[in-house]
C-alpha cells in the first residue's frame, strides 16, 4: 500500500509556483462559491418571531385567543409568500401568566430559539418585567397589555404596542362617559398596577372636566367575596367605573347585580372586564354596562370584508365572538394585536430591507410612525404606530350591553383620540 501510494504522480511531483497558484486559486474560488451559497441559504432561511403568550394561568382564557390569532396570521403570511420571500416561523412560549416565568421564557425565545422579534404578553406584570430584558437583548418587543408605562416611562426604543393603554382608554371613553353618564365617579379595581393606572388616568380627566372622583376601592386580587368592598361604594356615586379581569369580573358583575347597584348608578368599564366572556354567559348580570371596546364584538358595527374574513379565519361568530365549535369567547379587544403585530413586523421588515439582526435599527425606524391601512392584515382598522411613544392610535368604540349583546353607542376615531392624547415621551430619540 505504501509503495503504491509512493508511485502516485502527486507524491512524486514537486510543488512549483505554478501548481501552488493553480491550487490556491481553485481553493479560493471554491471557498467564495461555498460562502456565497451558504449566505444565500441563510438568507432564504425562515424569519423566527417569538410569541410570548399566556397559555396557562390567570390569563389563559385570553392567551388561547392570542395564540390562535398569531397562528392564523402566520399561516396567512406564509401562504402569501412569507416575509420578503422568507418563511415566517412562529415559536410560542407560555408565560404561565407569571412575570418571573415570563422573563425566563423571553430569554429562551431570543437566546435558544433565536427569535429575531417577539410579539408579547397581554399580562401587564409580565409585559413590564419583559421590556427591560428585551431591551438588554436588543430585541423588538410588542406588548399587548394595557399598563401605560410600557410606552411611557418604562418604554424603550425596542418596545411597541399597536393597541391602547390606560392613557388611551381614559382619553377615548372618560369625556363621553362624563358628559352622558354622570359627574360623580367611584372607581373599583384590583389592587395592582393595571387598576391603579386606570384610576390615575381617569381621575385626571374627570377632575379636569369638573367632576368629582371618590376615593378608589382597590380589591385584593385573591378576594372571592366582594360584598365588603361593594358595600363601601358611596351612595352618591353616579358612575361606577369597574376594572377587573377574568374570574374577578364575573364575581364583580354577579355580586354588584345581586346588590342592585345598577339601579342607583351607571356602570362603566373597559373591554378587559368582559374579555373572553359573552354577556349571555353572565346571565343578565352585565346588562346595561357601558364598555370601551378596541374592536367591536359585533361585526355589524365595523362591517367590512376584512373584518368578516378575519372572524372566519379565527373561527368565531359575528355577535359574541364565540368560537364556532366550542363555547369559548374571543378576547377580541386585545387578541387582534397578536394577529396584526405580525403583519406590522412584515411591513416594517420588507420596507427596511431587513436581513439579519444587524439591520434591526432599520426595522425600528420603519416601525416608528408606521401607517397601517384597513386590510386583511389590519382588520381592526387603519392605524398609526406613533413615532414618539410607539403607541398605536386606533379607533375605539363605546358600547352598551343590551339584551346580552354589545351594541356600539359611540365610535371614537383615531383622529379624535390623538387630539386627546399628546405623547408623553419621545422614545425615537433614544440611541440604539
Amino acid at each position: 500500500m505504501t509503495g503504491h501510494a509512493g508511485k502516485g504522480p502527486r507524491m512524486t511531483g514537486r510543488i512549483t509556483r505554478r501548481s501552488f497558484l493553480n491550487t490556491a486559486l481553485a481553493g479560493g474560488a471554491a471557498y467564495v462559491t461555498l460562502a456565497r451559497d451558504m449566505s444565500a441559504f441563510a438568507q432564504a432561511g425562515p424569519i423566527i418571531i417569538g410569541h410570548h403568550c399566556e397559555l396557562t394561568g390567570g390569563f389563559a382564557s385570553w392567551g388561547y385567543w392570542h395564540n390562535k390569532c398569531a397562528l392564523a396570521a402566520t399561516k396567512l403570511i406564509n401562504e402569501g409568500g412569507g416575509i420578503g420571500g422568507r418563511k415566517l416561523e412562529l415559536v410560542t412560549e407560555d408565560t404561565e401568566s407569571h412575570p418571573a416565568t415570563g422573563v425566563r421564557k423571553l430569554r429562551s425565545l431570543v437566546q435558544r430559539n433565536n427569535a429575531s422579534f417577539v410579539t408579547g404578553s397581554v399580562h401587564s406584570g409580565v409585559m413590564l418585567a419583559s421590556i427591560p430584558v428585551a431591551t438588554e437583548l436588543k430585541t423588538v418587543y410588542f406588548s399587548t397589555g394595557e399598563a401605560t408605562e410600557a410606552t411611557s416611562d418604562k418604554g424603550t426604543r425596542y418596545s411597541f404596542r399597536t393597541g391602547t393603554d390606560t392613557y388611551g382608554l381614559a382619553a377615548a371613553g372618560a369625556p363621553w362617559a362624563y358628559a352622558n353618564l354622570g359627574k360623580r365617579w367611584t372607581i373599583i379595581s384590583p389592587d395592582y398596577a393595571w387598576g391603579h393606572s386606570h384610576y390615575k388616568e381617569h381621575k385626571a380627566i374627570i377632575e379636569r372636566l369638573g367632576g368629582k372622583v371618590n376615593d378608589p376601592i382597590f380589591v385584593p386580587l385573591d378576594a372571592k367575596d366582594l360584598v365588603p368592598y361593594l358595600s363601601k361604594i358611596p351612595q352618591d356615586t353616579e358612575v361606577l367605573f369597574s376594572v377587573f379581569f377574568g374570574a374577578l369580573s364575573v364575581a364583580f358583575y354577579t355580586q354588584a347585580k345581586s346588590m342592585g347597584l345598577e339601579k342607583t348608578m351607571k356602570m362603566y368599564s373597559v373591554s378587559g372586564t368582559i374579555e373572553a366572556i359573552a354577556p349571555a354567559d353572565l346571565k343578565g348580570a352585565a346588562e346595561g354596562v357601558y364598555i370601551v371596546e378596541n374592536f367591536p364584538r359585533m361585526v355589524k358595527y365595523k362591517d367590512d370584508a376584512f373584518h368578516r374574513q378575519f372572524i372566519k379565519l379565527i373561527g368565531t361568530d359575528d355577535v359574541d365572538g364565540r368560537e364556532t365549535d366550542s363555547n369559548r369567547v374571543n378576547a377580541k379587544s386585545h387578541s387582534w394585536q397578536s394577529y396584526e403585530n405580525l403583519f406590522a413586523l412584515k411591513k416594517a421588515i420588507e420596507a427596511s430591507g431587513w436581513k439579519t439582526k444587524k439591520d434591526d435599527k432599520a426595522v425600528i425606524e420603519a416601525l416608528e410612525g408606521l401607517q397601517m391601512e384597513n386590510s386583511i392584515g389590519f382588520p381592526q382598522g387603519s392605524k398609526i404606530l406613533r413615532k414618539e411613544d410607539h403607541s398605536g392610535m386606533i379607533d375605539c368604540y363605546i358600547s352598551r350591553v343590551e339584551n346580552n349583546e354589545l351594541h356600539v353607542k359611540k365610535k371614537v376615531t383615531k383622529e379624535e383620540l390623538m387630539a386627546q392624547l399628546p405623547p408623553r415621551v419621545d422614545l425615537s430619540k433614544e440611541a440604539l
Partner: protein
Amino acid sequence: MNELVLALAVNGLVWGLIVALIALGLSIIFGLLDVINVAHGDFFMLGTVGGLVVATSTGSFWIALAIVPLIGLILGAVIERLVIRPTLRQASLTIVTTFGLSMIIQEVVRATYGAQPRRMAAPIDGTIPLFGINYEIYRIAAAAFAALFLIAFFLFLNRTKLGTWIRAVRHDPETATSLGIPVTLVTAFTFALGTAMALLGGVIAAPITTVDFRSGVDILPVCFMAVIIGGLGNLQGTVAAAIMLAVLEGVVTSFVDPTTARIASLVIMSVALLVRPHGLFAGATR
C-alpha cells in the same frame, strides 16, 4: 358607619360558614391522616365546575347540590388509593404529591372545560335590606346550608360507629387495628369525606363567586389559615377560626381600605399565633 359594621359582620359570618365547610374538609384530612393537601382548593374548584355542569344539564341547582358531593366521595376514594396511600404518614411527601395533583386537576379542567370564567345563577332570587345594604337572600340560604352540614358532620363524627372509628384511627391507628377496625378503609373514607366537603362547599359558593379553573388557588390560603389558627387538626377550632377570620376582615374593612384590612387581619392572627403557637383552640379536641 355603625350600620355598615353590622352589615359586614353579618356578611363575614355568612362567608365564614361557607369557608368553614371547605376548611373543615382540609382539617379532617390533615388532622386524621397527616396529609397536607395542597390540592384541596382544586377540589373546591371541581365543586363549582361540577355544580354548574350538573345544574345546567339537569336544570336544577338542588340536584347538583345532592349529586356533586357524592361524586366527590368517589373521586376522593380513587385519589386516596392512587395518590395519597403511597405517601401516607409522610407529611412532606404529601405536599409534593398533592401539589402535582393540583396542577393536573387545574390543567385537565382548563383543557376540557375551558379557561373562560362563568357565572352560575343563584337558585333563590331577590335581596332583603340588611343594615343599609341590599343583601342577597341566597347568601343567607347558603350560610344555612353550610351550618346544617357542619352540624350534621359533627353529629356523624360523635354519634355514629363510623365516626367513632375515624376518631379512633386518628388517636391511635395501631390500637385501632388491634381492635379490629378496618384502618385502611377508614383512612380512605376520611379522605373521601374531606374531598366531598370541598366539592359541597364549591357547589354552595358557586352562585356567589365564579366558576373558574383557578378558583381553588385563592380559597386554599384562607382554608390553611383557618386550620392553623384553629389548631392543627382541631375540627371545632377550624370552624371557629374560619368564621372569626371572615368576620374580623369584614369589620376591619368597614374602617380602612380593603388591602389594609387584609393586612390588619393577618397581623392580628400572627400576633395570636405568637401568643398561642399551636393555634387558638389547640388541645381542645384532636
